């Protein structure tokens, strides 16, 4: 069981490094045990450097870079140990358009193995959806679900004509 934990960790570590490179279009990142001799008690260290930059503490990463690194780790866990369905609530909030695009492309790949349900305000993420649900409040304080077509969303990803739904 220690072995199983170490094996899972190894798998996650490997996926993390390659998923990071894919999300950032380069660079390098790894996770490892602070004390490899005691995997069951040791803390876990993360090193990450976006392309063209030097290794420095991950605390110095920008908001968007932290999100991308965290997403790489989360998806590494998904790859090592797939969940049948996954639920992500506004994970793309801090991402600019280019990072959102890379995030979405990777999300598309992962949907081959698992079902993903994602809450987002980003039009670019919505464009990748195979199914779109709108949640609105035509009566104040009471939620209602509506099915939405991509064409009903305006340039900013908002449901352009709520009254028509």
């Amino acid at each position, binding site marked *: 069981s220690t072995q199983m934990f170490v094996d*899972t960790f190894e798998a996650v570590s490997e996926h993390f490094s390659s998923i990071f490179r894919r999300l950032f279009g380069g660079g390098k990142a790894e996770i490892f045990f602070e004390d490899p001799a005691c995997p069951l008690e040791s803390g876990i260290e993360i090193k990450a450097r976006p392309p063209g930059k030097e290794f420095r503490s991950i605390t110095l990463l920008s908001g968007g870079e932290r999100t991308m690194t965290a997403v790489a780790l989360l998806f590494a866990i998904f790859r090592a*140990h797939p969940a049948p*369905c996954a*639920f992500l609530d506004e994970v793309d909030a801090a991402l600019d358009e280019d990072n959102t695009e890379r995030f979405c492309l990777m999300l598309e790949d992962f949907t081959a193995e698992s079902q993903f349900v*994602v809450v*987002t305000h980003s039009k670019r993420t919505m464009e990748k*959806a195979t199914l779109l649900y709108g*949640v609105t*409040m035509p009566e104040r304080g*009471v939620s209602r679900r509506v099915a939405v077509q991509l064409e009903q969303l305006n340039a900013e990803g908002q449901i352009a004509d709520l009254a028509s739904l």
Partner: protein
Amino acid sequence: MHLKRLIVHGFKSFADRTVFDFERGGLTCVVGPNGCGKSNVFEAIRWVLGEQRPTSLRSRELTDVIFNGTVRRPPMGLCQGTIVFDNESGTLQTDATEVEVTRRVFRSGETDYLVNGSPVRLKDIRDLFAGTGLGAGGYAFMEQGRIDQVLASNAVERRRVFEEAA
């Protein structure tokens, strides 16, 4: 296995019985204005699957999730959620090829669980979803604003995040 359908009735802002059908595979996006109920949908799923900590549902007590009224509607006395899974792949710890999980909570605080119509205990729900990442606090759920905690600021905390996953 995959998620087929979610039905919520009386959960937070979902005063009316509301059904979400999901497709096998693919990417489903949930969109809409601020404060309209998107995060409530995800919390409903976690709640049905056995989330017991009110703070994880942005609440102080478990009964806070029952629709508690608007200027035009009175509070409700009961909150109910149902999730239907396709289990053809046998991922869930049961012989059933379709698994329907239901949870209810009353104003008294009394809560009950049903699987395919039969009453079960919270423990049975947890055993059913063990190893899928879908249990309460599982790695299959990333709550709003929490992505940053995946890179928890100290090595020991990070390990805790990791152990939940592995």
